């Protein structure tokens, strides 16, 4: 089977942002422009995560989803603050293919079953954000790592799969944005205990981290963000200057600074590396996007 490279785009209001430990957000630009670039570069899927969904209205996000889905024909997952079946329906109608849910599922696990029954299991991605505790256990969190749940991440993963989750997005909050590599133990334990695909998220710093989380972490798919965003920024800037929207920290862009802890890479370079290590993925792409 082939491993998927999923480009994760964190969204705040109208902007693509990226942070460390999901805090200290930096503004990077318009998400749909990045999405289009990643689509053309050979991303296997896209993930839009509304990182401050509870603080902002949804119209920005829905507009971005609609604009994206009209010109991008790979699977698009959307998450962040989806609490009701109607929320899911709204996002799917805007053009998402799948949704990612976390907080609402933790508060009421039956929500997973209801969503899977209504929209099909394959549409429902359950997001598990985990933090490793000093005793070696992993606890599930919500709200981008801000709220404890008291749930053991491994038990919770098995339970969500039983309730009808189609895939699990497993994020290490400890590693998120650090470039120190994926949390292999977290990913492997969950991947081996559930029958559904597991997407590893949080910590990619270099291509070798990605092949490692496939071989050792048993991940079925991988989320990548920081490694790709600055290459994309440079590309987009070379096209038409660069437009910024709204408020936020853009000083780093003016200063032309990347993420110092992360190797700047591209989807093609990552896939080439995976292929060289004998990991099957959609590479090379046969046709360029017209």
């Amino acid at each position, binding site marked *: 089977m*082939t491993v998927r490279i999923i480009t994760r785009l964190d969204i705040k209001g109208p902007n693509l942002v990226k942070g460390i430990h999901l805090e200290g957000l930096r503004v990077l630009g318009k998400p749909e422009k990045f999405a289009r670039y990643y689509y053309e570069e050979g991303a296997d899927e896209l993930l839009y995560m509304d990182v401050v969904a509870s603080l902002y209205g949804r119209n920005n996000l829905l507009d971005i989803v609609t604009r994206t889905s*009209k010109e991008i*024909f790979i699977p698009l997952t959307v998450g962040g603050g989806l609490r009701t079946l109607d929320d899911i329906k709204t996002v799917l109608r805007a053009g*998402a*293919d799948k949704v990612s849910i976390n907080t609402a599922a933790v508060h009421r696990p039956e929500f997973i079953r209801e969503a899977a029954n209504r*929209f099909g299991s394959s549409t429902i991605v359950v997001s598990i954000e985990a933090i490793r505790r000093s005793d070696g256990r992993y606890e599930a969190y919500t709200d981008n790592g801000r709220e404890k749940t008291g749930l053991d991440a491994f038990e919770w993963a098995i339970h969500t799969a039983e309730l009808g989750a189609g895939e699990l997005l497993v994020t290490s909050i400890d590693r998120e944005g650090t470039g120190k590599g994926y949390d292999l133990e977290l990913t492997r334990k969950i991947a081996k205990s559930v*029958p559904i695909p597991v997407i590893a998220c949080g910590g990619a710093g270099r291509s070798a981290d990605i092949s490692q989380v496939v071989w050792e972490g048993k991940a079925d798919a991988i989320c990548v963000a920081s490694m790709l965003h600055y290459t994309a920024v440079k590309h987009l800037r070379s096209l038409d200057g660069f437009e910024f929207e709204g408020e936020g920290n853009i000083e780093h862009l003016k200063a032309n600074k990347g993420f110092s802890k992360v190797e700047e890479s591209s989807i093609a370079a990552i896939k080439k590396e995976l292929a060289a290590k004998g990991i099957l993925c*959609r590479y090379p792409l046969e046709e360029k996007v*017209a």
Partner: protein
Amino acid sequence: MKVAIIDYGMGNLFSVQHAFKYLEAYAIQTSSKKDILGADAVILPGVGAFGEAMKALKRLDLVGVLKDVAAQGKPFLGICLGIQLLMSESFEFGHHEGLNIIEGSVVRFGQERQKKPEYKIPEVGWNRIHATLHRSWNSTPLRGLKKGTFVYFVHSLYVKPKDASVTLSVSRYGDTEFCSSLLSDNIFGCQFHPEKSGTVGLKILKQFLERVAS
């Protein structure tokens, strides 16, 4: 060109509609017989359970009209659950009768073995489609594609047509080789999602529409 995308409450049809709109077809989501009869092409998409899907088609009284337009030669495309519904029967959660437009059955990965498979089910992701030995892709919706090109799948079951010659492409998942698309006169079926398969998928849909136009 009018394209009727059958809306029977099974999954999200917006990606399919966006793809056809991108190709400049007039694509609507509908459960009306009049729309289906008046369309130049009929698309049966869907995700979810086979039994539930057949129940929904019966409740909307669409079984007859779908079989009629298929028999009359109207270009007909079944996607994902849609290709499965074309078959005579499915063994997903029991035994269910399908539309019986194509003779054959729908079976689950690993169903024929005792041992639990070592790969994930459903298959979610990109996989290759290969030509079969006895069938060319010339003058089919797959024409011009590179053999072994990648398309996007989400499925736990696959179709087994009784007449193997309707199989247009095969794919492999784990130790199973399965029919990933079929073509029988006006009936085209894809187990993968062309609407989510990037430029390759758009090309397949475009070439399906060209058959409609000709």
